[in-house]
């Protein structure tokens, strides 16, 4: 789960930390990836790698759709719009029972390579699978953000008008950033669905988005390692408090609300006192290389 959330946090971080797009609807990617992949597997019955790819493609397409309004909207309006979009997606999943099973969700989603492992060792295998994905995505995103494209993306975050005046097509760059983020989010969704084998709209409440936000705020915006660190911290916190719950005589409801209360406070404290997060973004300064004789 840490790995899956790590992917989600990286995807969100790519939008917020690099492109400066305030996405409050990150969970939509997660949801679309999970539903697409699991529906392809259960209803169409194509091999699993294609399901994963399908989840990524659809979710990337959705990223494309979501990036269209960035042209005309200011960041905070866009943030509200994304929040609303994610809820619409969830409501569609909830109400279109013929496709998604409605509130009952999609059940018996096949797990990849299940036949090779026993029930006990399977989670271990899945962990390795997820870790491989995280590493791959980490390197891919690192490469991408160091590339000229990555520099353009950061430049838009810092000063969009300057970027425009330099002849960059900011709209297209934002769009590409959203598609990349959407694909990563979709992959995370697909991994999630095939791990827990059962998904319902309840898995994709907006609170998930806020969890991801907590991750990148704690970990540090604008760098991938920070996103992963944030995911590890928040997820460890989540899981460990669940174990503590067995020893402390508090009802699960109380524990759950206490947990979220602390996460909310964490967001407030970090933004107030350490807005750059635990791992700072390294500022790179690029110098013009001078040719000799000039």
């Amino acid at each position, binding site marked *: 789960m840490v790995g899956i959330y790590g992917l989600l946090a990286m995807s969100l971080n790519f939008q917020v930390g690099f492109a400066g797009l305030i996405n409050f609807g990150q969970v939509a990617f997660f949801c679309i990836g999970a539903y697409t992949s699991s529906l392809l597997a259960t209803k169409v019955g194509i091999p699993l790698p294609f399901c994963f790819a399908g989840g990524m493609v659809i979710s990337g397409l959705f990223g494309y759709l979501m990036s269209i309004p960035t042209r005309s*909207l200011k960041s905070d309006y866009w943030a509200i719009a994304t929040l*609303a979009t994610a809820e619409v997606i969830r409501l569609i999943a909830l109400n279109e029972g013929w496709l998604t099973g409605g509130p009952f969700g999609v059940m018996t989603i096949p797990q990849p390579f299940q036949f090779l492992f026993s029930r006990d060792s399977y989670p271990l295998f899945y962990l390795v699978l997820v870790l491989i994905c995280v590493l791959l995505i980490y390197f891919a995103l690192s490469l991408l953000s160091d590339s000229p494209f990555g520099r353009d993306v950061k430049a838009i975050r810092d000063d969009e008008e300057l970027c425009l005046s330099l002849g960059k097509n900011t709209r297209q760059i934002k769009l590409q950033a959203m598609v990349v983020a959407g694909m990563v989010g979709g992959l995370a969704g697909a991994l999630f669905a095939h791990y827990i084998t059962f998904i319902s709209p309840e898995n994709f409440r907006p609170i998930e988005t806020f969890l991801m936000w907590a991750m990148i705020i704690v970990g540090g915006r604008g760098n991938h390692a920070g996103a992963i660190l944030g995911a590890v911290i928040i997820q460890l916190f989540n899981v460990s408090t669940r174990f503590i719950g067995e020893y402390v005589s508090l009802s699960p409801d109380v524990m759950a609300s206490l947990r979220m209360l602390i996460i*909310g406070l964490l967001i407030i404290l970090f933004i107030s006192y350490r807005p750059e997060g635990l791992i700072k973004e390294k500022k790179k300064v690029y110098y013009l290389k001078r040719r000799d004789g000039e």
Partner: protein
Amino acid sequence: MEFSQIIVNSLIRGSELSLLAIGLTMVFDILKFSNFAHADYAVLGAFLAYTFNQVFGINLLIAIVLAALFTGLFGIAIDRILFKRLRVIGANPVSLMIISMGIEIALRNMLRLIWTSEIKTYAIAIRKPFEILGARITPLQIKIVLVGFLSMVAFHILLHKTKFGKSLRAISDNRVLASACAIDSEKMITWMWFLACAYGVIGGTMIAMEHVLYPRLGFDILIPVFCATILGGIGNPYGAMVGALILAFAENIVLALDLSRLINLGGFFNVHSIQISTGYKPAISFVMLIIILLWKPTGILRKK
């Protein structure tokens, strides 16, 4: 559904939403950020009113006033602790927005901690609704519309007939010029928070009275409130009122609409009545919000 019933329902919903939207729009107007915690302040007030009424046995009306008072103070306290610091260092609106999101999460779960997530209802005797022109309406709902209307009138008077309102408008137009004219903007911001929270509490309590009260209510009404605010033109209190009314009408009309007439095209196809399922009711405000943002982000009544 009868057409008169649609009007009545929309009026009720509209007066509830507009009270909340006014507070949101004021905060945006003066402080230039979207306060995600606004609806949760309102729900905090609704819970306080519930407690005053049920536990201490205070008259419900007085309980609501008390709750509005306390929540107003709470809003001021949060502003003093968190927002003021960031205002002084001149943080960008995005961090303010994220902080308000943090407050939203923390506050909602605090409510859940104190009052548990059980659904609560106010002890109001259910009375037989009476009919006006074929629409059914309960005495409570009449009171809601009345209170909503009176609050709006009071707000208008406050904004245009008092010195306070004048200073508030001055700050919204030009903060620097206002402080040059010896208007203490910090003091005004404090009052503005108080007012926004108090109005929110009245709206929130009315929603909770008509339906039920639970901690997640704040999040559930957040997007409709945002929608009303933006629809009317953010930063414009009258726009917020108009936006709330339009949204309320849209919600009720879309649900009542019979799509089969459209599809049948005068008898070409024989489809039985198709209606949008009520499961999509929250989606109406979301979709409207997205459409408005795409088509006219400045809203209907742009700020002059």
